[in-house]
């Protein structure tokens, strides 16, 4: 097979006017994913220099939902964008070294941009479906590559800025920046390409990410999660290896402040004043579901050991391995009236997989930090 040259591509749909517009949408998706991703990583820090607000309680649900929606919507947009600019892959390199060097640098940055973008979107989609066909850490890699991808994107925008500005201020059917032989009409118009790319982005994002959204979740046919079985579960008691310890009569919840320790059985907790709160579980994987939680206010437990307000509180689980084994609540979360050690969910005793005997539920926190099977609460 003959290797094509840039001139082999003659469709007028492969135009800077289209690339700039689809690129703009793609850039918006990347910006949303970057900002919401940084928020999510910050929210998972054990000691946040400036604690995130505990209100509104649904803020993390919103930002992480947007993160996954923006990333999924970017997939059709990226594929269309790459189709539009594909001829550039076959551009000849300039002969003279003085011109070849900047060209090589620019094309190198494009290669980095394309490959990190593809890997970011692919690993993100796979993480939502909990498929990890790799040995690296998803979290560290997704975080690191985000900076590489966005860095390469900024360089790409800088290089293309004059063309982008021209293209975006002109008409979509403008041919000012087209290759001279890219004149053959396509089966659809340029506007048609834009409409299709946008529709595909919206449809793909809806189908893959809206599974737990009330009312419409049922028709989000490709979502890995639904509300069919109530609030979804990420790690079961069995896979966390806590079944024996969590159902044992020797179970105690320890509340520790300095030299003072109180040991409480589940019955002791049930005998304390019970509160109810409507709060979401919002997973880093983008799904979220709201429940009516019932249990003891964390602040009431802290009062048992005379802990002052304004302190950080470490919450430990029976499970020992994994990132969710213990978390630190910043003072504004620990003292919040809505932060509960929950014994009940939606009017029923908490199930083993939801964290029985008792789990943490606090407003505006990543689901992975809503510690299940709590065994120890420690005032720091």
């Amino acid at each position: 097979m003959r290797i094509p040259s840039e001139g082999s591509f003659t469709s007028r749909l492969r135009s800077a006017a289209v690339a700039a517009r689809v690129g703009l949408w793609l850039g918006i998706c990347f910006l949303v994913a970057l900002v919401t991703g940084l928020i999510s990583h910050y929210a998972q820090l054990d000691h946040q220099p400036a604690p995130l607000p505990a209100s509104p309680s649904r803020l993390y649900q919103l930002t992480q939902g947007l993160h996954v929606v923006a990333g999924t919507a970017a997939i059709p947009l990226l594929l269309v964008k790459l189709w539009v600019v594909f001829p550039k892959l076959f551009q000849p390199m300039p002969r003279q070294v003085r011109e070849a060097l900047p060209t090589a640098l620019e094309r190198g940055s494009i290669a980095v941009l394309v490959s990190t973008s593809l890997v970011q979107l692919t690993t993100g989609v796979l993480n939502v479906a909990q498929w990890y066909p790799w040995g690296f850490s998803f979290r560290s890699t997704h975080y690191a590559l985000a900076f590489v991808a966005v860095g390469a994107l900024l360089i790409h925008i800088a290089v293309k800025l004059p063309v982008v500005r021209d293209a975006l201020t002109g008409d979509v059917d403008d041919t000012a920046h087209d290759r001279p032989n890219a004149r053959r009409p396509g089966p659809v118009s340029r506007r048609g390409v834009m409409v299709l790319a946008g529709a595909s982005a919206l449809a793909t994002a809806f189908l893959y990410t809206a599974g737990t959204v009330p009312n419409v979740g049922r028709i989000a046919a490709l979502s890995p999660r639904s509300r069919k079985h109530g609030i979804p579960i990420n790690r079961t008691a069995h896979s966390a290896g806590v079944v024996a310890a969590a159902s044992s009569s020797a179970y105690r919840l320890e509340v520790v402040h300095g030299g003072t320790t109180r040991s409480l059985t589940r019955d002791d907790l049930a005998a304390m004043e019970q509160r109810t709160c409507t709060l979401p579980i919002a997973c880093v994987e983008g799904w979220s579901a709201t429940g009516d939680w019932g249990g003891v206010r964390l602040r009431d437990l802290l009062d048992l050991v005379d802990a002052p307000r304004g302190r950080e509180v470490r919450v430990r689980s029976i499970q020992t391995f994994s990132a969710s084994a213990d978390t630190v609540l910043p003072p504004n979360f620990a003292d919040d009236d809505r932060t509960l050690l929950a014994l009940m969910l939606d009017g029923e005793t908490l199930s083993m997989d939801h964290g029985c005997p008792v789990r943490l539920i606090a407003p505006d926190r990543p689901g992975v930090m809503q510690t299940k099977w709590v065994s120890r609460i420690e005032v720091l």
Partner: protein
Amino acid sequence: MRGIRAALILLGAVGMAYGAWLLVSRQDLGQIVEVAVWLAAAIVIHDGILAPAVLGLGWRGGRLLPRAAARGAVVVLVLLGPATLVAIPVLGRFGAKPDNPTLLDRDYTQGLLVFAILCVCAGVAVALGELRSPHPTAEEE
């Protein structure tokens, strides 16, 4: 404009360097090599397999199909293609866990099939619309 472009390039280079440092400083060598393999594979799979396959489809479709049918085919391809790629992990149920019924709890083959039928309906509607309009619109000439 010159200043903005220089600032963007500088900021971009800093971002790339920081990301690369994060990548190599937080994992062991085997993991870093695997990330590099994924980065290279992404380019090879897109530029070497996916893009040529779509080009081939476009080239053949452009020759074999009448204009109206080609329009319909493009509609189906752009709507259904990306959704099908995204559906691979759930269709294969690769992440399924026997003790967790709340994960991958739908019939994804059926779901994708229904979406495919909707896409074909949209394609047919667009093709019929083209057949009914006697002349191509000005913007496509």
